[in-house]
């Protein structure tokens, strides 16, 4: 299993959620986060004075899926969350050792 962590624009959350649900990926956890990329935030020019907003609000989505589903999730998220401008976000994929359902105590490890 893999955990997919996507950092996206907050205004894209609805679209991403809808598109994921369409493909059958309903389970997810989301967080309000702040961060910056290589550009170190957004720089506004105000009458020659620079005004840097260095931590920009984003949404983080965590989804855990089977190995063979990773490609589909990544593709869905990139397509739904892309605007083509700087600040569209990143996706990180990492291995998950085990998942336990609290209600049933059923555990899945693969």
């Amino acid at each position, binding site marked *: 299993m893999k955990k997919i962590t996507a950092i996206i624009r907050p205004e*894209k959350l*609805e679209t991403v959620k809808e598109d994921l649900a369409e493909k059958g990926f309903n389970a997810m956890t989301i967080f309000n986060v*702040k961060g910056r990329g290589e550009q170190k935030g957004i720089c506004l020019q105000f009458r020659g004075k620079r005004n840097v907003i260095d931590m920009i609000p984003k949404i983080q989505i965590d989804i855990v899926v089977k190995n063979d589903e990773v490609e589909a999730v990544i593709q869905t998220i990139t397509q739904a969350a892309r605007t083509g401008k700087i600040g569209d976000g990143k996706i990180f994929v990492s291995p998950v050792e085990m998942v336990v359902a609290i209600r049933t105590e059923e555990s899945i490890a693969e």
Partner: protein
Amino acid sequence: MVLEAGDTAFVLICTAMVMLMTPALGLFYGGMVRNKNIISMIALSFISLAIVTIQWVTIGYTLSFGHDIGGFIGGLDYIGLKGVGMDGDGIPDMLFMAFQLVFAAIALAILTSGVAERIKLSSFIVFGLLWTTLVYDPLAHWAWGGGWAESMGALDFAGGTVVHISSGFGALALSLVIGKRIGFGKYSMEPENITITLLGGALLWFGWFAFNAGSALAADGLAANAFVVTMISAASGALTWMGASWIKGKPSSLGMISGAIAGLVAITPACGFVGPLESIIIGGSAGILCYGTLLFRIHKKFDESLDAWAIHGVGGLFGALATGVFAVAAIGGVDGLIYGNVGQFIIQGIDAFVAVGYSFVMTYILAKIIDKTIGLRVTEEEEYVGLDVAQHGESMEL
């Protein structure tokens, strides 16, 4: 020229209560925008209050209440409050001036609905000065300062035409000039703090008693009538809007409070001319009509962002006409259409539609001039990060 202590005390308190309505409107609007613009939205109302205060005491009051020039505008008799003293007829002239000031202030604040989340603050200040001088002041003169509408016998007890039609239709014109918010119709722009909106709505409702009853300018039976019909109309509007939206889905608290405001707007011109039962009809109809207008606005994809047009513009227009329909001579001295006075209804119609046309066209022209010269709108990046940071250097989020 004798001062009445009771009347003076009453209008003093009413003036302070109406002043509270402008920041209250800021809260009402602030809760409906995204978190990155909430400070900006509330600040715009305070700023409107400050701009109009200075404009009103220097030039606005005299343009509205100076000697009549051609039925259109007041002369410069009271420029810089010259001759506006502590004496007066019933209440001090100074107090009358202050009471009128807080009305002018809230009118400009209502307009900010049309430019929410994208207005450049410096341009708003320039635009606001021009708007209150060239749109609000003439309208106040027409209705209350001896202008053509007053001479013709048009009824506007507390400013349905002067305050609400002018700002509501102005907001629509302004929103058309400034353009839609980036991502409007594409991304969710749901209200992010409904509790603040409800608090603002509560304070507006409270202040409206002073807005309407205070417009009697005396602590008398007419003020009591205005007070009671204000309460009834607000309640009726809240219930019908909530009911209508219940049919389409869940009865939102935002719809309920919007309906209350719609009822308050519609009763504003009528509150000194109609009785309790008429106010149920006026408030109830306004709730449904304004809700319908809001749905129409969304369907047409107008980004008049916080619905000043639907609630204040259309509600005010309906109120002006309803005054001509339901007026009872026993209350305000004039009968309306249902008592056979067709003439009054026609007068109300002329007054209201001229106000609609004038405020829409003038606001559109003023907005275009500002947009072409100094630009009404912030840059795309500033809009993206939000006006709180971009215009004020403050934020709820950091």
